[in-house]
């Protein structure tokens, strides 16, 4: 699904030919776009890197943009109902991410899924601990949170507040749109 989302992002931004050129360069095709398959991270990173070059973005910025895009991709596609079910506001959605990932893990054995824990919740501010066996995906997570702020009609900012071992603490500051 992630690869299909990257493809859709490149489609939306640069058109089909750009994606076909990317496929050609990486030597990939429909076999690398199968839903339900767990692909090697190296392949996903290679696709993102190639996409970033074509979008004229640094890899970090591309990951951030892709995080934002993933939220839009999920809410308008076949994952819409599960996105709606997970939470009706930003705080509850993030609190329930681990429960959502439980279902994802059951549906895709072998998938390496992160964990999110809300360690502090005050009006307009969330502190969320992110744990993952993967490294280097912080810009993607920043983009996800930014996309979620937008999804719930809020405005705000997200940044890394702390970093220790395999735990990264994100700070979300936001104002509800209403």
């Amino acid at each position: 699904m992630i690869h299909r989302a990257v493809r859709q992002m490149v489609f939306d931004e640069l058109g089909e030919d750009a994606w076909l050129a990317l496929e050609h360069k990486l030597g990939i095709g429909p076999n690398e776009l199968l839903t339900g398959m767990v692909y090697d991270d190296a392949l996903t990173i290679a696709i993102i890197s190639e996409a970033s070059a074509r979008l004229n973005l640094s890899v970090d910025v591309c990951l951030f943009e892709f995080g934002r895009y993933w939220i839009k991709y999920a809410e308008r596609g076949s994952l819409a109902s599960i996105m709606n079910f997970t939470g009706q506001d930003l705080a509850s959605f993030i609190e329930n991410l681990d429960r959502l990932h439980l279902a994802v893990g059951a549906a895709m054995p072998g998938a390496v899924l992160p964990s999110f824990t809300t360690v502090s919740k005050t009006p307009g501010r969330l502190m969320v601990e992110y744990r993952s066996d993967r490294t280097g995906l912080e810009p993607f997570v920043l983009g996800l949170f930014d996309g979620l702020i937008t999804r719930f009609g809020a405005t705000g900012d997200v940044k890394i507040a702390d970093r220790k071992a395999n735990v990264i603490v994100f700070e979300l500051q936001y104002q509800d749109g209403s």
Partner: protein
Amino acid sequence: MLLKFTEQQLASLLPAYLRLDSSFCIKAIGPSVAEHLPNIRVGMRCTDVFDFIHTDIEQFFDNPQGVKPIRLVSHCGSTHLFGAAVFDKTGCILAVRHVLSEESMNNGTLYLNDFGYADPVVLSTMLISLQRAMLEESQATAIELAHERERSASLLERTGRVAGYMGHDFNNLLSIIRLNADRLLRKFGHDEKISNLAQIIRETAARGSNITQSLMKLSQQQTDTLLPIIIDDLIRENDTFLNSVVGSGISFDIDLQAGTCESVISYNGLLNCIINLLINAREAMPHGGRMSLSTSVAHGLATRKSDSGETEPSAYIAICVADSGSGMSEALLSRAFEPLFSSKPKGTGLGLASVRDFAKEMGGDVWLESQVGAGTTVHLHLPLANPSAEVQTPHKLGQSTVTPAIGTRHILLVEDEPYALEALAEMLEAEGYVVTPCASGEQAMHALEQQTYHLLLTDIVMPGKTGTEIAKQANRCQPSIKTILMSGYVPDSASLEPGWMFIRKPMDSDDLLRLVASAV
């Protein structure tokens, strides 16, 4: 134990719980119920807010020690709860949860927070929803793959067609070069210098022909040369090889009774058929047995429909392959020719299917006779090339008892390449045939109205009328006419009819002359 939980603990385990006293008055409300039914208050009677489905309210508290299954629907109809009532001396706890459906997930009436963290129903419902989403994406992927394959097949087909037409044009040029090199050899072959030059041209044309063969492979051209072939001779020539196909441990008899009778077929095509049949027979006898291959001339109704749509009596060359193997049941027999069907674990299911395709293409037929435990006999019938000559004594290729006298064998020659037409006409005339050369189908149609011909020799791919259209028309208006088609490329639209001979361009002059001689 549930009864001892604090309201906070209950709220996190069962967000839709309700605590009641023995008068049905609400003592505590779970956060999810409070969220969905904002008018509910502590102190209200539960029955004023909910209908208890299939529950006798009068006797509800009669057994305060037990647990009762329970289902509630709010009066406004928006909240459905189910679970159990757990009683104590002061009342009960309604340990209930929302009824979760995909619809309530889709329309946003329920959220994860409405369910306890350990609620297994939530995980399974989310899993179903997630799998449905993955299935939708997989279907989209499958459609994309199908389109991709369609595009590739279409590209390959277009490439093949282009290769076919390129091959055709190139073959035509090679054919002209080769025929005219042969002319040079015939006319000036006594001059060593000219003879050498003509040989060089012939050999170079032959090398060019190898290139066109590659193009033809790309265009999937598989039409073999179709010649009148003496079936018994074909079997005799391959006798040793056929014996090796049967292998040891099986007694193999060959009984050839078709004499010199010929059928217009592809040599390799028939050989492949016989090999397939022998392999099938061998595999039906893993522990050995008897096998026979026989030929004879048989009479029966033609399987090929005539123009009137009726069958007509005709003579056939019958080829039989019989084995003493395990035989086949009726069920197996009915599916034996089905493509990709095989009763053998490693069978491809292509052998008998390809035999049937070959028989039909050649205007013949094939069928099986079999009984479980009594072996199988395959009957392959192929039409006689010249039914009137069936009872003749052996003769050589090109000889016939009804051969017209030299100088009276009329050939209608159709070829749109003027240099090839000229070379072919000269070559045939040099052999004593009377040739009417035509540069187009339209000219040929006109010529057919003027006189009777023994043979139509025509190119296939031409502007205007194609060779197959001319042949059909010629066979209609002159049923005794023989037909030889020649081409470097046979388009799919040009279906060759049984009995028509075919020679691939660029052809060797001697091969063509032999074919012509055998036809007339």
